[in-house]
């Protein structure tokens, strides 16, 4: 079977699914952030695949470049915050951070 668009979309969808699973089930803050990275990669793969198979041009790839860049900067901030949290709470388990409750 010829590898086509749908194959790539499927890979991206699986990545997206695993990413969501991470976010929904993980307790470790970094674990959740790994899930976010997976989702971002899923979206990026989608963009490149769509560009390759459908639209042509460069806009899809450009978008992906920005996704990668911003993911990196976001990760930097996120990890700095994780360290802050670890310093103040001595834990990074998301469900143990309960200073503020309704």
């Amino acid at each position, binding site marked *: 079977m010829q590898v086509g668009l749908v194959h790539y979309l499927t890979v*991206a969808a699986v990545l*997206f699914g695993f*990413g969501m699973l991470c*976010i929904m089930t993980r307790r470790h*803050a970094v674990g*959740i*952030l790994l*899930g*976010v990275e997976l*989702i*971002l990669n*899923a*979206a*990026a793969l*989608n*963009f490149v695949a*769509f*560009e390759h198979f*459908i*639209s042509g041009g460069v*806009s*899809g790839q*450009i*978008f992906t470049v*920005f*996704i990668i860049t*911003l993911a990196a*900067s*976001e990760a930097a*901030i*996120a990890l700095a*915050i*994780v360290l*802050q*949290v670890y*310093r*103040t*709470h001595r834990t*990074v388990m*998301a469900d143990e*951070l309960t*200073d*503020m409750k*309704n």
Partner: protein
Amino acid sequence: MNSFSLDNLQSLTWFFPEIAITVGVIAVIIWDLISAGLNRIRGIVVITLASLLTSGFLSLAYLMRQLAGLTPSMSLFGGLLAFDPFSHLFRMLFAFVAAIVIVFASPSSETGAGTRKRRGAGEFFTLLLIITLGLNLMVMSRNLLMIYLSLEVVSVISFVMAGFKIDNRKSAEGALKYVIFGGMASGIMLYGMSWLFGISQSLDIGEIGNQIAMATAQNGRVPLVILLGVVCMLGGLGYKISAAPFHMWTPDVYEGAPTSITAFLSVGPKAAGFAVLIRFFEEGVKATTHYDGRLTPWAMIAGLIAMATMTVGNFTALHQSNIKRMLAFSSIAHAGYMLLGFCVFDQQGKQAIMFYLLTYALMNLGAFLVVAAVAERNGGNEDIATYNGLGSRSPVLAIMMAIFLFSLTGLPPFAGFIGKFYIFASLLHVGGRWNWILATVGVLNSVVSLFYYARVVRAMYLTKPDDKRALTVRVSWGTTIVALAVPTLALGIYWAPIYDFMTASLLIGR
């Protein structure tokens, strides 16, 4: 594409508000490095205020030019950004909000500017300016890439701002939750964008709109893939306006962040989120309430989100004891009211949202300012119990707070009532069963909201103070509070000029 689409160089002429802010950013960084002592902080405040005011007035100038018909609406940078009255109006609002927050933040110790060593002040104001730049870009974006980028500018900096307090458990915790939710929301939004890109082969939202309209006309209904893409995008934007079910970060972040940042986050990004939402649904989805006599999925989804947002916000706010947290939930509820206006997808709804945003900016900033002033004198304690007897301890502050709270409730003769009135009027103007249900839920919610706003009023006036000493407030804060309360009252009595001005300006240019 637009007939007035300027290339990169030509666009610079119409990009001065943003350039002013960028120059401000650089100037603040340099000044922060070369000066010391009190001069450092003074200089920084002056530079930031100057760049914001320049930005605001330039936007006003552009707006006046456009209203006078001297400059047409056009696209900048080859179609990436829109240059239309709609964006000018929002840019003015952002300049105003950011300027207020700067006045607010400069003597505050939470941000570092008010401490003895003034550590972190330079960074604080730099970041505030960068967020404002991001907000400006958000409201101008008419391209998925620019929407994503500008949203990310705002998000990334907001994460930092939320965690700005040194070694503060709540601040760090709030920031972490913010980052997690923010990352997830932008991821989901990107995923949705990629589907939209796939179906329309373009990042330009106008082009996407054409494709969606075509596909809808062909199928007789909205194709599933488009629905999926748009719903995913709603996730990202809903997170920015803290609409349910993407609101979970809001209370923690608002409670943990420095109060000035809370005030900013509750107004600026929310307004920008609404601007993007409106522009995307008008240009990119071409949404209407009814199609072929049936309710469109857009009206359905937006209505459901609006109802959920209001209800969650109001009912959770009922049993909060921390005032910042309570106001956080109230800001969620207000996003819900504004979404009601969004549900009708027409000019009147837009006007209602815009007017509501203005009044909301006034009263919410004011309320947070009072919170900051009271908390500062109570050693950072933000409990509602600290408001006991405020009416006798600081009459002016208490009256202003009462004005803001009643305005937030939506009682005449305060501006909040007029905002709500326009929202409900826009719903009933379109009419139909769904809108009547939405309006009914809306007014019920507004009754519920009285409970928790009145709790603060009760604490201020009906409860005896625990501490009888007078509570003083800095002159700069006091003046700002009054400056926000006066229009809150005045706009409730005579709002015609402002409303008409907004009506004239709320054109999304193509």
